[in-house]
């Protein structure tokens, strides 16, 4: 990257922004160079906004012929060294999964904004529904790990998008931003930090020093036993294998007779770095015996519910998952070990995270799900459950 275009950054200070726009601006600040997308409600504003902004900063915004093409072009762009992203909704994601698994196996970094909506392609397009949580985790054939971040406000959509790009560069895996139909269309005030502060945070796409050109894919260091993730290879430079194969390959990119080693590298590079990837927040957890575990929009309602409940003398706290995948097993175990009950408000009926909590706690602590579909939790909904549980 020769010179960073100053048009990338909005003027520092407060701006009123739609969630989708805040996400796009976050991506631009993080150095987005290629966006490939296909319009789908409720993510359309992302491609609309970037169609204006990307040419201004010397980047490319392509409206492809379908979702399959958009994700493939994103992978292509990432392979030649552009930070790239796509944005879509659930029906688009389900079309893209084949390519996501290819990208994960090839260790191509990219960011994926999933503005979740209700139901299948013919569903209620304008209603929020966190129904892709499971699909995101297992988004493709083959085995791999993904990172998924769940913001809860427009400010976080901006900040976490930068984090997502950094994770993509560091861990070379698909990174998802789990927005939803409501968050994407919410207008809120976003405070944009000064350009220098953003640039300090951003990890740029660079080539490694030439003597490290041999190792292009994740490998296990024999001396330390740790997984080393080299910088992503770039086509059109010497730092690229002659053959990019999405089949078990070693760190040079050559087909390997040891698929197990490859699989370990792909899975463990995330699993062993959970302490750096898993971002969590706690709220009044110290003496809490009823714990709310939440992510995304329901957290907002939970904060208010906890404040009211605390005033009435209930010992409630919130454990918020900013990183939904990989699931922070140890941290959750540590937090809930003395809890009387766990409440999991989720914007879906299945309770994807509730299932994970059940797995971690081995069903020893009662878990109360609060499912909601197409509308989100009012503080009173959560408060009611807290009171019932405390009885």
């Amino acid at each position, binding site marked *: 990257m020769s010179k960073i275009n100053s048009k990338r950054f909005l003027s520092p200070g407060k701006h009123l922004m739609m969630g989708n726009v805040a996400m796009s601006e976050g991506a631009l600040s993080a150095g987005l160079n290629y966006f490939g997308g296909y319009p789908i409600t*409720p993510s*359309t504003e992302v491609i609309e906004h970037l169609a204006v902004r990307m040419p201004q900063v010397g980047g490319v915004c392509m409206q492809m012929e379908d979702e399959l093409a958009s994700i493939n072009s994103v992978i292509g762009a990432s392979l030649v060294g552009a930070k790239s992203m796509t944005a879509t909704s659930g029906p688009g994601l389900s079309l893209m999964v084949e390519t996501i698994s290819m990208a994960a196996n090839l260790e191509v970094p990219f960011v994926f904004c999933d503005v979740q909506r209700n139901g299948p392609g013919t569903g209620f397009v304008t209603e929020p529904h966190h129904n892709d949580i499971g699909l995101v985790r297992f988004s493709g054939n083959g085995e791999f790990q993904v990172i998924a971040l769940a913001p809860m406000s427009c400010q976080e959509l901006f900040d976490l998008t930068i984090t997502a790009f950094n994770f993509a560069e560091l861990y070379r895996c698909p990174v998802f931003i789990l927005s939803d139909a*409501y968050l994407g269309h*919410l207008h809120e005030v976003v405070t944009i930090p000064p350009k220098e502060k953003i640039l300090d945070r951003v990890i740029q796409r660079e080539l490694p020093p030439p003597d490290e050109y041999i190792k292009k894919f994740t490998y296990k260091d024999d001396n330390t036993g740790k997984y080393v993730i080299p910088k992503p290879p770039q086509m059109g430079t010497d730092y690229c294998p002659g053959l990019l194969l999405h089949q078990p390959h070693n760190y040079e990119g050559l087909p390997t007779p040891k698929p197990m080693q490859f699989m370990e590298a792909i899975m463990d590079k995330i699993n062993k770095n959970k302490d750096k990837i898993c971002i969590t927040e706690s709220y009044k957890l110290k003496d809490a015996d009823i714990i709310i575990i939440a992510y995304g929009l329901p957290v*907002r*309602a939970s904060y208010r519910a906890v404040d009211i409940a605390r005033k009435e003398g209930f010992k409630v706290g919130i454990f918020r998952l900013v990183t939904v995948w990989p699931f922070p097993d140890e941290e959750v175990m540590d937090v809930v070990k003395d809890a009387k009950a766990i409440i999991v408000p989720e914007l879906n009926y299945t309770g994807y995270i509730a299932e994970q909590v059940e797995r971690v706690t081995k069903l020893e602590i009662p878990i109360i799900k609060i499912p909601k579909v197409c509308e989100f939790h009012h503080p009173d909904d959560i408060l009611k459950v807290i009171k019932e549980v405390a009885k």
Partner: protein
Amino acid sequence: MTRYEIRISGYGGQGVITLSKMIVTASSLYEGLAGTQTEAYSAAARGGKCWAEVVIDLDKDIKMIDYPKALEPYDFLIILSQEAAGDIKLNMVKKELNTGFLIWDNSAIQKFRAVKRIDNSLGIPIQKIAVEKFGNIVFGNTILFGVFTVLSGIFSEDSALETIKKFVPSSTLDKNLEAFELGKQQGLSFLKELKEAKA
């Protein structure tokens, strides 16, 4: 925690969404209150039932609105089309002393039953004034914004003027300020009426 719930509904393209953005800009960007705005989009933004909602928290210490959708009963309801008027029920507007306003366009809505039994309701022929006096229907927004500024009182007039400068093209700024003034007068005279009625 003092939520102020606002809902605007009318024809898509009439300025429903712009007005809601003006309100949230004035109150959260210039006044520093926590606020959110949501709007109809995609197919829902077409036709006579386009809507936009704004929630402002009047408590300055609140950093984030917990439930971003406006809840019934509303503090401020603006109805601009016949289709939207049909959905309005009596209990949708707060029945408190200084809040619970219903503003409707009596040049666009012929039949509005509920309005007779809602106390703080004001009919203004907004479309008619906008077209006849200013030459374009979009000035209706600024008139309504003036009415809103006076009646709600959640942000200062300075913030309102800043917002107008931000939203309208500089070529029509004078006309818009005129429209704002007109809205303000409408609002002030309505407040006077209410006071007299109560006294």
